[in-house]
């Protein structure tokens, strides 16, 4: 071993972002062949290991958070990285999914992306993960915006790479680019408003400044800042009815990209909402002084119902899952808008559970696209016999979406409904359950096609997906089952994070 005088432990927070950043940049040097993939796997693997280490350090330290001051500038002058239980958890999810999808990506990328630009593709891919990690870990409002743009820019490009398969990827990507930029601009403007009234960019500092303001509840600038941020964040996390960019983007993106996006991108959007609504504005302002309680809950409920209904009508499995994702975002948003411990915990748990389940399902669809050439219902018909393991994974993931017991989805729904009952919002409980029933309908559409249809065309000659795809798929689906059975880790982290988010509330 080389004796590198690098204090990994002390610099852990920045290394989590720095590793993929350097890795992504260096990935452009890797040329053709299998090397870019190998390098990316290494980089994302190391990143994942670092996030695990981060989580363990945090849990071992017993502190509520670990702060890291970049450039050693005091946090209210420079930029602070701040890791608390919530974002350590999200980091773990993002880095973990990033690693697993990278492992999975090799064949899928080989199949879908011209081989002369694999190095660039993987560079952009890793930078997308970097952006997501950066948004999650930072404690500085403007830094969020910059990292948000990195992740968005990379994702636009990655989605557009579906162009060789279906040209609609291009329009989907451009649509996302326009809406995403408008959303990001709203966020930028909201941050500007906040900076104007608070004089700082550090989130904690902003929060304290806001609390010090005598006219917090009536200040029109803050009010508009809040509205801008809510609209911007809703666009980014695809909250109904600002979800228009999502379905097509997920449908036409390259398979591996769909999996990465579905599992991480909108989740990080939700995480930003946590940071802004709970962290900066505070529960009291966001959910009691403002009518966001009703607005967000209303949007979330509408999203759950309508996007599930739209999902039922889809004939392409990928766009079916994409619409389902919009509905699932509804659950997550509904959970945290309840602003009570069970609701917020449900929201956090669902971020994880849905990431794992949807990630696995999109990867399974990617494996099907790899073997059969498409993900339309006609491609899926009868695959249960030809590709039993892939189809099985898809079916199990589907059960998770419905919220069957023994899958992770059940746990989230349990918390969400409990939260709704705690808040006396039985209507929301009804919406959540109706959403599950709709999920039953659309998932069963896939399951029937898979197991009780007659294969035609390429489906009839398909063989089981290669092992390099099956393993990542089953790791994620296995996790979604495992965390439906043993929730001690997820539920514990979620409840603790929820209580710290809610601050003084019991």
């Amino acid at each position, binding site marked *: 071993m080389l004796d590198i005088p690098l204090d990994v432990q002390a610099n852990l927070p920045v290394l989590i972002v720095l590793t993929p950043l350097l890795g992504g940049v260096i990935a452009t040097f890797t040329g053709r062949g299998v090397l870019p993939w190998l390098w990316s796997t290494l980089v994302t693997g190391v990143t994942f290991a670092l996030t695990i280490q981060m989580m363990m350090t945090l849990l071992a330290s017993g502190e509520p958070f670990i702060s890291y001051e970049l450039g050693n500038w005091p946090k209210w002058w420079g930029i602070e990285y701040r890791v608390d239980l919530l974002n350590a958890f999200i980091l773990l999810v993002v880095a973990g999914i990033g690693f697993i999808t990278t492992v999975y990506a090799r064949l899928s990328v080989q199949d879908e992306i011209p081989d002369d630009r694999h190095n660039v593709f993987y560079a952009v891919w890793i930078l997308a993960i970097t952006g997501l990690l950066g948004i999650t870990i930072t404690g500085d409002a403007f830094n969020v915006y910059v990292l948000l743009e990195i992740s968005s820019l990379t994702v636009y490009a990655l989605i557009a790479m579906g162009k060789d398969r279906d040209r609609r990827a291009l329009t989907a990507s451009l649509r996302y680019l326009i809406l995403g930029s408008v959303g990001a601009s709203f966020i930028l403007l909201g941050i500007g408003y906040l900076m104007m009234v608070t004089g700082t960019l550090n989130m904690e500092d902003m929060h304290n400044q806001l609390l010090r303001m005598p006219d917090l509840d009536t200040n029109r600038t803050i009010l508009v800042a809040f509205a801008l941020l809510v609209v911007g964040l809703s666009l980014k996390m695809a909250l109904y009815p600002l979800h228009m960019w999502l379905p097509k983007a997920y449908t036409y993106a390259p398979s591996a990209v769909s999996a990465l996006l579905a599992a991480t991108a909108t989740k990080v959007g939700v995480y930003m909402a946590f940071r802004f609504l709970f962290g900066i504005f505070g529960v009291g302002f966001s959910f009691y002084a403002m009518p966001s309680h009703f607005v967000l809950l209303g949007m979330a409920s509408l999203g759950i119902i309508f996007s599930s209904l739209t999902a039922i009508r889809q004939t392409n499995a990928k766009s079916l899952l994409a619409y389902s994702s919009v509905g699932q975002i509804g659950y997550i948003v509904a959970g945290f808008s309840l602003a009570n411990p069970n609701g917020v915990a449900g929201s956090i748990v669902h971020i994880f559970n849905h990431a794992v389940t949807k990630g696995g399902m999109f990867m399974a669809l990617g494996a099907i696209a790899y073997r059969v050439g498409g993900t339309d219902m006609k491609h899926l018909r009868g695959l249960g016999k030809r590709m039993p393991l892939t189809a099985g994974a898809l079916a199990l993931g589907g*059960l998770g979406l*419905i*919220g*069957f*017991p*023994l899958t992770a989805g059940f*746990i989230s*729904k*349990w918390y969400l*409904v*409990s939260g709704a*009952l*705690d808040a006396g919002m039985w209507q929301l*409980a*009804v919406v959540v*359950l*109706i959403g*599950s*029933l709709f999920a*039953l*309908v659309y998932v*069963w559409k896939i399951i*029937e096609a898979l*197991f*009780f249809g007659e294969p035609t065309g390429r489906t009839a000659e398909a063989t089981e997906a290669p092992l390099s795809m099956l393993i990542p798929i089953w790791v994620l689906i296995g996790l979604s089952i495992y965390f*439906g*059975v*043993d*929730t*001690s880790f997820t*539920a*514990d982290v979620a*409840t603790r994070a929820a209580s710290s988010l809610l601050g003084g509330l019991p």
Partner: protein
Amino acid sequence: MGIELPLLAMLVPAAGALLIAAFGRWPNVRELVTVLTSVALLGVVLQMLPTVLADGFWETTWTTEPIVLFEMLPGIPLELKLEPLGMIYALIASSLWILNSLYSVGYMRANHEKNQTRFYVCFALAIASVMGIAFSGNILTLFVFYEALSVSTYPLVAHKGTPEAVRSARVYLGILVGTSIGLLLPALIATYFFTGDLAFAPGGIFQEALTDGRLTGPMLGVLFFMYMFGIGKAALMPMHKWLPAAMVAPTPVSALLHAVAVVKAGVFTVVKVCIYVFGTQSLVSAGQGEWLIYVAGATILIASCIALFQDNLKRRLAYSTVSQLSYITIAASLLSPLGFMAASIHIAAHAFGKITLFFAAGSIYTAAHKTKISELDGIGRKMPWTMGAFAIGSLSMIGVPPTAGFISKWYLLSGAWETGYTFVIVVVLLSTLLNAGYFLPIVWRAFFRAPPSHDGHAPLSPQDDAFGDPADEVTAGHGHGHDDHHGDHGEAPLPIVFALSCTAAGTIVLFFFPDIVLGLAQQIFKGLPLP
């Protein structure tokens, strides 16, 4: 000690499923494994019997810690616990599984069904879920295995893979999962919300919440409503549609669904929820359980009336099941010890009787390829064993001694008399008449009417597309006597005949030796707090 046995009871069929899947290529080994697993399971279940029947069960075994499988939600683990009512259910399911396995071997081979490995695997998984339900230590565990049962039986219902089968399976799963997610799950969460506890306890868990005012009587009523209709497997009208829909399944599946596993899981849950979650006292004091008597009574009568007009034998049996299940529900809803007793015994009595009837229906289909009642003229002479068993099953359904059905009806009437519900007595008497009205003509037709001759009456109606082979009908049309494909049949294959004879015998044995079931039923009340 026997305390880990409940877990073993779950693991045996689960392991069996794995082995069956592994030996899928060799049908003989596969089916041997199935039968061996079922025998092993019965052995395990019987091992537990003495513990449950022993005096002082409630003071010793019940008070020991449950077997925690894993902590599913913080504070609410998945746990297994021995309990007399569950024991009755487990005993019936495991003993009938052996016979059903034998029967399945005969049936599936004789009818050249496809995907047999999937069939046996799902069957074993369904039984594992049943064991989970029977020994569940709290409602969440019960719910989990209840759902697992729905999912594991889905491929069985959709087994044929024809559009009709898939459509019916969709109805089956839609209603079962829809009710459980839409009503049962929120009821569960609300229960936890009000009581902070989901563990089964004799006398119910709502007392405390009721006394300190967290929960009011009407709210309890709403919860009770959600539970009763949420348990779709109990087929309370209007949630019964899945049962006739599930008739497309191969007959062993129908037998399993309608006699052993699925419907019994439903009524078992109903009884269990009444006793261990709500508790008679809470329900009686809140005055909220009474509507159930009328709904169940109506279900009994309406389903019986519908059954009268079904020509398809399996459909008639299905509606008979709907009505018989409500016997159990109505008995439980009396909320009296005799009522619960009647419910427990009827779970057993109906199981043996109905499985006999379904076995017979399957036997007729296998041997004669007939599914319509109107085609059964004179079939008793060609298939004496089958139709003899069918007659015994019918008698049990009607409640004629010396069959098991008589005992449960007796207890039910006594319970109704004791609690003073004249309505129940009227319902039971009326439905007995209706039962006779739809079962006896079949027996009469089979034994006392001449088989159809070619000149006289050809089959009254064309055969059901889903089951029949049109080629057979052509042959039947021009042939007479020896030419007639159908006229030429004898008894069904040996495993089938053996299985149905055993269950028919069981129906009678249960009448003469009801001790075990009665003993278990009585054990339930020793644990209940005295009113």
